């Protein structure tokens, strides 16, 4: 049968299709490299130093963690404008618990995460079960939690935490051999990651074979392995040659892996994309739309709490103004990374590239001593442009 053969011989076609479908991500990746090149030239190499790049990665962690949750929110066709204010409040709660009430860091972190989960569930309840538009629900929280932050902080900075807590935002993975010349643990982690990737890639190949599916040719597979290995090696060597892998970056990588898995491999992830793509069809396919939407916001709340912890630890202080404009960074990261403002489309990895773009622009402009007022203007315009590109490419499709 013709049909059967055309299905079987589809590896090349599906690679082409894959490139076509992810063209936005690839172009954004190229754009990221282009931005790095420009900043490197303009700052006379200062931008590309391992020290700066290492800092850049730490800076993007807060945005990156929130962007992972925001992808789900936006793919489902909603929005969360409150993440900045909520992150401010949660950071202040964690700080107050430790600095004022003398709670241990572990307990403080646990309480903060639970508080984030509850706030997210609160949003989800109003949006999914009471039908209030997400825009309004989260706009209300955006204002309300600014007030809560002021109440918790009393308008003053709360600061100075234990080393354990601080390390979540500023620390690096400790060395295995205390007086090694470089961060040996980080190098080891890099090597282990590469080995794990190779093992997983071949295991995937084998199970596909077991099902009798076509697999990529050996040269193509080796090409892919080499490409990914070089990327991992490059990224970890940048960090190894400075002070090692920052703990915050490790947390972000963990979240990226978990959320990539959720979006690609779980029924919950599928439901999110189906709801964003066509809510009626999702409902008629037996998907519990309300429950799914509640979970999406609960996850957003949890990640906001995690981002708030990392951010507060990095600054070693909670300020009344903390979290300002985080929502812009998180939303812009998603959109730059290809998440559709109309729902149904978006990837975690895209949003992370978007977060890197936003962090690079921040970092580069700071290195260039661009006045903060221009930084705001430029970031605002970038968001506008990214949305316009989203609409313009959608029309053509």
């Amino acid at each position: 049968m013709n049909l059967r053969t055309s299905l079987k011989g589809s590896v090349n076609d599906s690679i082409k299709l894959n490139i076509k479908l992810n063209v936005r991500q690839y172009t954004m990746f190229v754009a990221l490299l282009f931005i790095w090149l420009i900043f490197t030239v303009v700052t006379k190499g200062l931008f590309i130093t391992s020290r700066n790049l290492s800092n850049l990665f730490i800076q993007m962690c807060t945005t990156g963690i929130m962007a992972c949750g925001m992808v789900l929110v936006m793919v489902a066709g909603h929005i969360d404008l409150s993440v900045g204010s909520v992150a401010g409040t949660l950071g202040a709660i964690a700080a107050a618990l430790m600095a004022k009430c003398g709670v241990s860091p572990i307990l403080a972190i646990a309480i903060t995460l639970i508080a984030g989960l509850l706030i997210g569930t609160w949003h989800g309840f109003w949006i999914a079960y009471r039908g209030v538009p997400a825009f309004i629900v989260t706009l209300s929280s955006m204002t309300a939690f600014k007030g809560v932050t002021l109440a918790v902080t009393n308008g003053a900075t709360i600061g100075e935490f234990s080393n354990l807590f601080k390390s979540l935002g500023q620390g690096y993975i400790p060395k295995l051999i205390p007086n090694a010349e470089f961060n040996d643990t980080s190098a080891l982690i890099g090597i282990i990651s590469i080995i794990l990737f190779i093992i997983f890639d071949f295991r995937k190949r084998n199970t596909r074979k077991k099902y009798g599916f076509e697999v990529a040719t050996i040269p193509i597979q080796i090409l892919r392995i080499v490409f990914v290995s070089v990327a991992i090696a490059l990224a970890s060597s940048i960090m190894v040659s400075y002070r090692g892998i920052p703990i915050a970056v490790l947390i972000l990588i963990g979240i990226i892996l978990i959320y990539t898995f959720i979006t690609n491999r779980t029924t919950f992830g599928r439901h999110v994309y189906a709801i964003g793509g066509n809510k009626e069809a999702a409902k008629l396919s037996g998907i519990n739309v309300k429950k799914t939407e509640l979970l999406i916001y609960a996850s957003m709340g949890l990640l906001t709490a995690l981002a708030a912890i990392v951010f507060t630890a990095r600054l070693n202080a909670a300020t009344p103004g903390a979290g300002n404009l985080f929502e812009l960074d998180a939303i812009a990261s998603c959109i730059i990374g290809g998440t559709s403002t109309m729902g149904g489309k978006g990837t975690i990895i895209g949003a992370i590239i978007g977060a890197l773009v936003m962090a690079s622009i921040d970092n580069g402009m700071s290195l260039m001593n661009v006045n903060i007022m221009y930084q705001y203007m430029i970031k605002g315009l970038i968001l506008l442009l990214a949305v316009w590109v989203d609409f313009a490419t959608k029309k053509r499709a």
Partner: protein
Amino acid sequence: MNEYILEMVNISKEFPGVKALDNVNFKVKKGEIHALVGENGAGKSTLMKILSGVYPYGTYSGDIIFKGKIRQFNTIKDSEHAGIAIIYQELALIKQLSVCENIFLGNEINDRGVINWEKSYVETEKFLREVRLNIKPTTLVMNLGIGQQQLVEIAKAMSKQSDLLILDEPTSALTEDEIDNLFDLLRGFKEKGITCIYISHKLDEIFKIADRITVLRDGITVATHNTADLDESKLISLMVGRKLTERFPKVRYEPGEVVLELKNWTVFDPEIPERKVINNVSFTARKGEVLGIAGLMGAGRTELCMSIFGCYGSKVLGQLFVNGKEIKARDPGSIIKAGVSYLSEDRKGNGLVLIQSIKKNISMASLDYISKATVINENEEIRMVEKYVTKLRIKTPSIEQLVGNLSGGNQQKVVLGKWLMTNPKVLILDEPTRGIDVGAKFEIYNIINSLVESGVCIIMISSELPEILGMSDRILIMHEGEIRGELHWKEATQEKIMSYATGGK
């Protein structure tokens, strides 16, 4: 002086792949009430859309002669200006605005942009008196009943000094009294010389009100007669009088035991909770049979099936049994689990996620079967989806292809694949062949046959009489939310179905 106020001469209109109207001639005399009848899809709506300028001049061929002049309407505004007013089935009033604001919407009585409310109210009262509606001009439309809203629409048409009023299914939501009132009004208009085109599925009404009747069938004018020269059975035979040349690949099997039973099923409108959309419907459907549900637009067929599936109605009364077990749940997820699946008539709106792949669309309703602890087994998914792609002969280079890029027929097969993967005992197909080409239709019929052979019960809604006759083992005919008749395939004819569907006994 020409006795015809309107002549539509040799009107033809094509949509991609279909000839909707083929040299239609339609003449309306000044001051008469002229009924336009035909089955679903006969071309009535298309003809009226051409007349009112929804389909602009140039997108059809033929001439419109209105009040003795050839007209070229490019917009609705053009036809309104000429004196034609159309009142649609779904009322086009803005509910949040007052009666007065609605009547003058777009034609506000104003002086350099400032509305003259005094004059507007006085004028509105005048028009409301004309349609015998005793309400204040400031009443909000949302506080009016459907019948009153309709009269507001007519008042709006009056305000535009229309000479030709087109009413599309005006009585579908009205009570007996409201209908009588409307008819009195129309007779009054006739005396004033206002012409009226009356579109309806209800033949008794047509015989009550119309002077002449034009019958359309499959895009051609069958005949125009004086009402006095016709009776119901003559009219029905004109409406359905096609020869049954299309052949269906129907295979007959012996139906098995009852799998689905509905008892005293009553469904209330989701928007108007006191209105019954489905009234006390009971039926059974058997394993290995195709149960056809026939009826005209608005008879409640889709509402019936969607309410069984748990996604329609503000309140649902009655009992649903699947395999003898009562199903109390009223949400699609539970109904699917109970073994009933529903393929919607609105493929793009309710069936598919166009921006997703064939794979994700087909597996969407059965992810639980291919996952453990919510983790999807991707390889199992590919295997299952490829099975359905092959079985249903979906033409695509890859299951990763986006559904939005497929043809209508292939899209329909994807939705069908989605429901087959849920392994249903009862599969409800709502207009399964709408908008797809002949080849794909034939393939869908063959799929229906093989499903029936494997013991699935098919409930098929269709507006195409030949399809209903050609594929069903048993036919239920609905009219105004009730089942008016049941026919075995051996005794079923187009005339009998149409007679039940138009409210006959």
